[in-house]
């Protein structure tokens, strides 16, 4: 039975459009426009380093910067999935090293086809994530503890797989090419043109579909601005890459995974349920979502991405050794998304934050290397940046809570 209340929703919409300016300020304070904040931060960091050393913004250095952040960015993409659930995976560093070692040993010592060896490495990661996810959901052990045990165990497994020599040098060209392929100028332009075209089509097509259905939509001007910004970033990036060695395959792989997982988390039922389970596991369960199954799957994806990142790191280093996946890799891979606005408490964040966070951390590290600072200073500065980001996030949360939001 329909009770016709004509236009009762229409008046509710126009005031919200009028209030859009104060709405933007409010959302900025509450951390909803966190990507914008991070992009400002990146611009500031780049400006500071460029003023200190004018090689920082050179094409060569920027290309190096993006090659440096690729492994940690790939790992962070997986970390975001765990963070969105309000969980954490501390084993990603060790898993990335182990998966790379499995790939290297199969390829170099057992003569496996490089593609098969890479798949085996990624499957190693997936199996580990599956196991850890099952342990954590079946026995209700905090993911923190399960993956902490994993951190130790998989480090041991890495040493075991590498054997007595403790290092495996990569010689196969296919594996090495992952991180060392650069496309020609023409290919770079074609890729950029296709990407810009697809983005414009999807954005404007979605707009027209919404207009036709009669539901709210963002103003057309804003969408066109967004497409223009996307195109400008793409064109500038290709100009920079082309004036050095060309568009790197590694960067393309990173962007591919970021876009893929961004779509998975925002456009599919799985992503919707991931956010729901991270926001309120009880509400998700009552809505009929199999929360435990989601957790296991998310952990399997997280470890798989750690494996992908580890293989990329190995390809860049041309070797896997006992310190692969060790050092500060784990912490940087978690710090990146958090710096760029993904909450540690679940339900808030995006896969973009993996990329943006990796750029922030990578820029600081790269810039300080250019300035030839001591590693003591580097660690302290990186720690400081993480702290500032977390404080900013906490302030945003307080603003939200002041309005009764969680």
């Amino acid at each position, binding site marked *: 039975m329909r009770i016709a209340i004509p236009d009762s929703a229409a008046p509710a919409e126009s005031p919200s459009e009028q209030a859009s300016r104060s709405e933007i300020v409010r959302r900025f304070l509450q951390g909803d426009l966190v990507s914008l904040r991070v992009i400002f931060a990146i611009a500031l960091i780049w400006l500071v380093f460029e003023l200190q050393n004018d090689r920082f913004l050179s094409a060569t250095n920027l290309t190096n910067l993006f090659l440096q952040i690729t492994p940690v960015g790939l790992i962070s993409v997986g970390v975001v999935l765990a963070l969105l659930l309000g969980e954490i995976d501390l084993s990603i560093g060790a898993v990335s090293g182990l998966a790379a070692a499995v790939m290297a040993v199969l390829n170099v010592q057992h003569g496996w086809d490089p593609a098969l060896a890479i798949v085996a490495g990624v499957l190693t990661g997936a199996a580990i994530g599956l196991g850890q996810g099952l342990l954590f959901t079946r026995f209700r052990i905090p993911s923190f503890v399960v993956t902490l045990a994993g951190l130790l165990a998989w480090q041991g497994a890495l040493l075991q797989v590498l054997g007595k020599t403790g290092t495996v040098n990569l010689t196969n060209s296919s594996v090495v090419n992952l991180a060392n392929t650069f496309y020609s100028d023409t290919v770079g332009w074609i890729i950029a043109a296709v990407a810009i075209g697809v983005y414009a089509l999807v954005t404007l097509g979605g707009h027209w579909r919404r207009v036709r*259905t009669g539901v709210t939509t963002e103003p057309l001007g804003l969408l066109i601005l967004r497409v223009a910004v996307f195109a400008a970033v793409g064109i500038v990036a290709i100009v920079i890459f082309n004036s050095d060695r060309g568009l790197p395959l590694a960067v393309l792989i990173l962007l591919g995974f970021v876009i893929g997982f961004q779509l998975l988390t925002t456009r599919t039922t799985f992503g919707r349920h991931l956010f729901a389970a991270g926001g309120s596991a009880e509400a998700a369960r009552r809505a009929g979502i199999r929360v435990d199954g989601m957790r296991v799957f998310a952990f399997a994806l997280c470890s798989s991405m750690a494996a992908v990142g580890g293989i990329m790191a190995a390809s860049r280093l041309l070797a896997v050794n006992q310190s692969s996946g060790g050092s500060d890799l784990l912490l940087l891979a978690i710090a990146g998304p958090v710096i760029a606005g993904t909450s540690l408490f679940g339900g808030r964040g995006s896969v973009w934050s993996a990329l943006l966070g990796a750029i922030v951390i990578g820029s600081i590290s790269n810039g300080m290397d250019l300035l030839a600072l001591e590693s003591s200073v580097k660690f302290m500065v990186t720690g400081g940046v993480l702290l500032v980001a977390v404080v900013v996030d906490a302030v945003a949360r307080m603003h939200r809570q002041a309005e009764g939001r969680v």
Partner: protein
Amino acid sequence: MSDNGAVLSMKGISKRFGPVQALDEVDFTVGAGEVVGLVGDNGAGKSTLVKAIAGIYSIDAGEFSFEGRPVSIKGPNSATALGIATVYQDLALCDNLDVVANLFLGREVIAAGPGRLARILDETTMERRSHELLEQLSVTIPSVRSEVGTLSGGQRQQVAVARSLLGEPKLVMLDEPTAALGVPQTKQVLGLIKRLRERELGVIVVSHNLANVFEVCDRIFVLRLGRRAGDFDADETTEEQIVGAITGAEFGNGNGNGNGGPKGESA
């Protein structure tokens, strides 16, 4: 009320928790387009009755019939499949998701075409249907794309009720829908309950607030110590009679109502 036109009718429902007889031979009926207030003191058995209907508790004895057919409710899913929707007091909404996402949580509309395999969301359809639903129910919220965490308590309650309607239920149970709400918000929620009645749904409202119960309910069913302490026509009853039935004091004064008066419980 007779069983004719009844959405749900229950006979001789009993439920025991260890030494406690939570429900003792309760007969209970809800008709289509009827709002029944379920009242009683703490521990009177209201929650047990609601949970028995929702399939969360299995009953020890008694018969259910739904739309005239005898049924057994074996669990929450079987209750949902029959067409029984329950809105619990804690609402179970995801504060980090917007209204559309919450309304369709667990029953998202999947886009047609090649996106089916990847289970890609059809946001446009969900948003349009959300608009339609909220419009029909005269629910006013700033935007269907606002995060539920930003909404007021009354708006959240209305979203939770609207969500329960997406499954096309025949019977909606509301657990303390106006608790912790301000006066204008309470008014909105009560208005929404009246619109549920206009949709020919059976509605059960569990509430401690007798003023609200009298405002929206057609019939008031009083439980006391697990037994039926009265079944009153709201128009022909005073608040004192209900309080009397709830507390067990002044029992018998409410006997002159159209439903044949309370039986089974003596003061």
